[in-house]
Structures are given as C-alpha cells and as structure tokens.
C-alpha cells in the first residue's frame, strides 16, 4: 500500500516538474525563433528553420506521461485486482514482477484453486509461482526467426498473430490442468475465429463494419 501511495505521489511530482519544464522549453523555442529571424541566413534556410520551429511548437517539444500499456492479452484484466489496475498500467515492465507477482498468484489460485496444490501445473508444466512469474512481467515475447504465435500447439509465446485464439489458450492454461482435459466447459469459449476475414497484405486487419 505504501508503494502505491508513493508511486502516485511520484507521478504527481513528475507531472508538476514536466509542466514547468514544458514552459521552459517553450520559452527557449521562442528565443530560437527570434534568433533565426534576426540572422542573415538565406531565405531557404530561414524557411526550413521556420518549419522546424513550427514543429517544435507542435508535439515535438512536449512531454508525454504514460496512461495505459499492454503486452500479453488480458493480463491486466484477469490477474490484476481492481484497485491496482491503474497502477499496473503505469509500472514499467522491469518492475512489474517484484510488485505484482504475489497478487497474480493469489488471484490465479482464487480463480483456479487446483493451482494451490503442491506440484500442480498447467499443460506447459508451469506451477502457480512459475506461471504467474512469467505473466507478471507483461511483455509480449516475439521471435524474429520464424513462426509468430501466442500458442499453436507447437510454438509457445513467439508473438501474437491476428488469428490466434488467445482467450481459449489462456482459459486452457488457467483451467485446463496438466493436459488441457480438465474443466472442459470453462476451458474454451467456443469462439475460435474473428467475425471478418483478415487480409493477406498490409494492413492485415479487416476493413471496419
């Protein structure tokens, strides 16, 4: 709880500091514009510098503060308790395991109590501590060397393709037991594909309805 309060206070401080910094940068940018208009550079240079200044006045000199993030599908939704969801979204991935792994494990064992049995694992051979240790760092692992899929029966966590049935995979890993055979009515939502065909070419996603 202390950590949560501290983090919120920290974020507020960051917001204040950067609000001030933005003003300073804006003032500095104004000086730059004045300097260029007084210089004897040729018109072409002036024009390009004006363009640069206008870009600086736009989004380029601003400071952006994180609001949401996502790695693997449904992780925050499923494993993070309600009062921690916003904090999870503003915790850098390298710190997520330390802050959230025990919460993930508690929530997994509440959801699928068999995981509380010593030695109980899912079909990947991961027990509750190992499985939640993997999930708590919410990044998507992606292979640059071949098949990219969340899980296709052979390859595990090498990316996430549009057609991957990620919810059924996650339900199986949560409820399906050691061989995906347990709790069959909870382990598959029986929606196995998108409602519109994906494209074979960029941008790959189907046109909107």
């Amino acid at each position, binding site marked *: 709880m202390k950590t949560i309060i501290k983090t919120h206070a920290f974020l507020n401080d*960051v*917001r204040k500091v*950067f609000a001030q910094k933005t003003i300073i940068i804006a003032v500095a940018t104004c000086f730059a514009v004045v300097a260029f208009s007084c210089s004897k550079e040729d018109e072409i240079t002036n024009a390009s510098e004006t*363009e640069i200044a206008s*870009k600086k006045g*736009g*989004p*380029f000199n*601003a*400071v*952006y*503060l*994180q*609001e*949401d*993030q*996502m*790695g693997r599908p*449904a992780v*925050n*939704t499923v*494993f993070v308790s*309600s009062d921690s*969801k*916003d904090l999870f*979204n503003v915790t*850098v*991935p*390298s710190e997520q395991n330390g802050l959230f792994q025990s919460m993930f494990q508690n*929530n997994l064992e*509440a959801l699928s*109590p*068999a995981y509380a*049995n010593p030695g109980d694992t899912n079909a990947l051979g991961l027990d509750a501590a190992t499985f939640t240790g993997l999930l708590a760092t919410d*990044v*998507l*692992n*992606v*292979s*640059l060397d071949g098949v*990219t899929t969340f899980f296709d029966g052979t390859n595990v966590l090498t*990316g*996430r*393709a*549009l057609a991957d049935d*990620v919810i059924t995979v996650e339900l199986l890993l949560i409820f399906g*037991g050691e061989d995906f055979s*347990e709790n069959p*009515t*909870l382990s598959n*939502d029986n*929606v196995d594909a998108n409602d519109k065909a*994906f494209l074979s*070419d*960029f*941008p*790959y*996603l189907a046109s*909107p*309805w």
Partner: protein
Amino acid sequence: MKRFRQIFGISLLLGAGLFIIAADHIDAPEVQGGTSDITDFYVFQGKNTDNMVFVANLQGLLSPNATANASFDENVMIEFNIDTNGDNVEDLVIQAIKKDDKMIFVGPVAPSQTGLVSTLEASNFGNDVSKVEITPYGSPAIIGTSRDGMSFFAGPRDDPFFMDFAQYSAIISGNATGFNNPGSDTFAGTNVLSVVVEVPKTMIGGSGTINTWVESKRKQ
C-alpha cells in the same frame, strides 16, 4: 486438479471482481473508454518474412454508427516498446502521434529516456519522421511507406479480437456454469482505431527474441 472441481462455482464468484473486459479493452478506471485506452496489441511476422508487424488498437467496441466520429487524440502518443537484450527495458521505440489529418511516425530509435515519461524522439526534426494520412471511415486503407522499407497505417478497422465475453460474464456472475457451444463473439460487428507498422527485422534486432509492449502517453 480434479478434487477442486466442485468448488469452482464458489471460486468463480470470488474471482468475479477480477474480470472487467478482455483483452485489454476498458481494463482500468483511469483510461476506460477514453482516447488513450489500448484495447489490444499484436506482433507478428509480415507477409514479407523479413519484416515484423506491430498493431496497436485503441477505443474499442465502436459501433459502425460511432466509428465515423471516432478519432485519434492529438495529445496521445502511441509508443511501441522493443527490448532487444532481455532486461524488459526498452532499447528501441516506434512512436505514433496524430497531427491534423495525418499520423506521424518516429523510429525505431533508441529513446533518450526509458520509462513512463517520453518525448517525441525526432532529434533531427524532419529525419526519421514518416507520415501517413489517417484513413477516413469508409475509405480504402491508405498506406504510407518509407525509403527504409517500413509501412504505416492509421484508421478504423474491424476489431480483430474475438471472445464470448457475455457468457464469460454470466459464468463469473454465477448465472452460468460453463461456456456455450457454439459461443457468441461479443466483439462481432464492432470496430477499433488501429495503428499498424511494418518494419524490417534488421531495424529491431535482426534475430533472436525481443520483448515488446505498447504504451499510450498523454501530452502534459
């Protein structure tokens, strides 16, 4: 696991508070339903297998009627983060932000600072910056390309996510004991705002495994 089956009903009730909506759609109070709400994230090998494709979806559950009026927020940066050395800290970022009727793209580039606070990494203003016109609702996809082999898209798309979320909610509320077969896709017929970037693998590490995640960051 078997001897615990009988208490699933109870455990699911206890777990009800854990579930709001998937995959990341409307996942947390601060961002729920807003312009920075990330609904989904995909990374996969492109049709050209020398390339990877990054997809960020925002503002989910748009009905067709609501889609024409949905727009990206000029104050919200979408940032793809790429860790190439396994420490879960970003070594490269690809940034996207709306400016007028275009989406501006920067990167992949090493960020000047990692973490929760970012600036647009266009250090040589004009260099490393690509743009694509945001595809209006109802128009064919407008695709931008860069000389170094990247492709860009921004605009409304069908939500590629699928799940029987309604039945799931019924289960965790104690009103059902399992999924139906066949199930019903709660996200059928709904749209999202998508940002799609295709990038040569050589620009993001070349080979091996990368760790990736997407962030939305608001202008302060």
